[in-house]
């Protein structure tokens, strides 16, 4: 069983939080276990996944991309077609339902690019819960439309002015709010990070992705795929698609953000270039200095721009359940453009990292091999970033 009773995936995970939160984490774990056994809760969750989020998401054969690369067959798991445009909604629906069950009326969340913030605000609007989203001040500027979107959905967005003013600082500030308002407030974490039981819970809510792929690919191809590729920031879309295959022969590949290059210290490739440490409540790989200070990170994909990673991924890496690699900003951008032109699908810059790795892998494989890419989100939110890039390049 993963995690174990202490919330550990091997040596990773655990609960490294201020004492004020410890009793709450125990309460949360009990409430989650009870909900999991309750058929009504399950029914509700599945109802909303289907009728509200639009699941199951299609597994689409990318024929033109496959032909273009001239190797393995490529399928896209279309999480971009979910309501709110990414896999994030699977988790926010699950946790918001749990929060409501626990009698919590106020939800807080952190967000980087705004995708998890939007998905949380959406679930809160749906269930009539108060919603406060912490977002780094830098990110509120880069993602103005998402800030507006959250406000439309009735959420309060608080710009975080502390530290580097990005995702990690938004998490710090959300935790500070949580410590302060612990009795009334539910912290809805957006990835498989944080103290136990969050990495387990978020994973469970996201495994619907992998379970669907298993059924869909068997129906289409009569067998399991050879490779599954997903991008990894905190790692929730990747764990969601990996988990059901962790003991199979399917090769699982997690793609991190190499930013400007791993040799330049301007990246977010935690598993590829980090070391063991403790941040935001869990022991995992971490991008840090020799003295244990957390390092600034960079990725063109705001959802990957994070110095930590889910503890279960650290465990998968050590156990060789999955293989982790990285893709640079430029490679991701190239994949972003290629998929848009060849398939009419504009991917999120995060998901473009997974696509970019497939561009390298597929031509090396024979045509009887099958690759599934988790297309975790759509790229509308990134048009501003890509627009600026294109503008700069044409000016040069």
């Amino acid at each position, binding site marked *: 069983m993963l995690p174990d009773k202490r919330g550990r995936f091997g040596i990773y995970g655990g609960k490294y939080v201020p004492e004020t939160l410890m009793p709450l984490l125990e309460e949360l774990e009990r409430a989650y276990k009870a909900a999991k056994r309750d058929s009504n809760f399950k029914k509700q969750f599945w109802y909303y996944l289907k009728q509200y989020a639009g699941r199951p998401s299609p597994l689409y054969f990318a024929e033109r991309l496959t032909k273009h690369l001239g190797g393995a067959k490529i399928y896209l798991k279309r999480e971009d077609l979910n309501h709110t445009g990414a896999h994030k909604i699977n988790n926010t629906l699950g946790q918001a339902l749990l929060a409501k069950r626990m009698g919590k009326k106020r939800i807080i969340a952190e967000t980087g690019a705004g995708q998890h913030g939007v998905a949380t605000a959406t679930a809160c609007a749906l269930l009539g819960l108060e919603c406060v989203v912490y977002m780094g001040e830098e990110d509120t500027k880069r993602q103005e439309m998402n800030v507006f979107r959250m406000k439309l959905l009735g959420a309060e967005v608080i710009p975080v002015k502390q530290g580097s003013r990005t995702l990690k600082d938004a998490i710090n500030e959300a935790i*500070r709010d949580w410590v302060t308002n612990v009795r009334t407030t539910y912290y809805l974490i957006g990835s498989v990070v944080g103290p136990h039981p969050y990495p387990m819970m978020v994973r469970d809510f996201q495994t619907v992705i992998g379970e669907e792929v298993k059924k869909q690919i068997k129906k289409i191809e009569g067998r399991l795929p050879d490779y599954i590729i997903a991008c990894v920031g905190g790692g929730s879309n990747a764990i969601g698609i990996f988990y059901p295959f962790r003991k199979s022969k399917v090769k699982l590949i997690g793609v991190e953000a190499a930013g400007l290059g791993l040799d330049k210290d301007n990246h977010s490739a935690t598993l590829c270039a980090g070391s063991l440490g403790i941040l935001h409540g869990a022991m995992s790989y971490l991008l840090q200095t020799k003295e244990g200070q957390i390092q600034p990170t960079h990725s063109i994909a705001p959802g990957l721009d994070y110095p930590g990673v889910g503890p279960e991924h650290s465990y998968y890496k050590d156990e060789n359940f999955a293989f982790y690699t990285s893709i640079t900003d430029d490679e991701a951008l190239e994949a972003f453009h290629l998929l848009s032109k060849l398939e009419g699908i504009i991917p999120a810059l995060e998901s473009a990292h997974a696509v970019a790795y497939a561009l390298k892998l597929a031509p090396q494989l024979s045509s009887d091999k099958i690759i599934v890419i988790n297309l975790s989100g759509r790229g509308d939110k990134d048009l501003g970033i890509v627009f600026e890039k294109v503008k700069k390049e044409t000016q040069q």
Partner: protein
Amino acid sequence: MKIITQVFKKTKKQNRRVLIPFITAGDPNLETTKKLILTIAQNGGDILELGVPFSDPLADGPTIQVASQRALKNGVKLADILALVKDVRSQTDMPIVLMGYYNPFFQYGLEHLAQDAAKAGVNGFIIPDLPIEEADEWLKYSRAHHLDTIFLIAPTTPSTRARKIAQKSSGFIYYVSVTGVTGARSDLPEDLIQNLKQLRQITSRPIGVGFGIASPEHVKRLVPYADGIIVGSAIVRIIEKTKDSDEACLKVGEFVRSLAQATIIEENHSTPS
């Protein structure tokens, strides 16, 4: 008997409570920190809580966050802080406990840290993001090197859990006055005194109370109910506002003296512990 326990016994005999001022090491620089430590010792500080800066201090409010950033900007490292403690040890016996987040300690190496800290003259550690469940290894090395392990108890901690935490603590227990982060506040929480009374029922270990305690008036109100009183952000704020180390020492010295005077137990209500 370890020195922190001795300090609690001694002050009790002197009919007063233990004053535990907090400053962040390296804020604004290590030289000033050294002078401040000596100033605090000379003006009635009984135990010093010395903050080890971390890039992501999630239990701290804005005042100490910014102090940590100032220290980190100056490149202050844990090894420098240990060297500083070693340096001041020739001039003061005041016990010094390091307060810091787990990751920098973990990177230093727990065994190595316990050894070096003890050698430098550090007397104990407070690690706000290391609850008892995760502390076995640290406890082992701390005990081997006679360092006190000061764990925190919060208003949300149920009594069965508080008992366990008290058992694992040595030196004193750090009672967190509010559900919240560190930072000077104008009022004490309403339920604080009641909570301290309840905690007194379940442990005989010295109880230090901290978070939000910002004035001699606050200290006076807590004197009947706590064995030690921790004042952090209010001191850090003074340092933040002064222009050089002489002024910082002068102002901090004055403030600590006023806090120390407030720790005296008045005759009419002297025996909660």
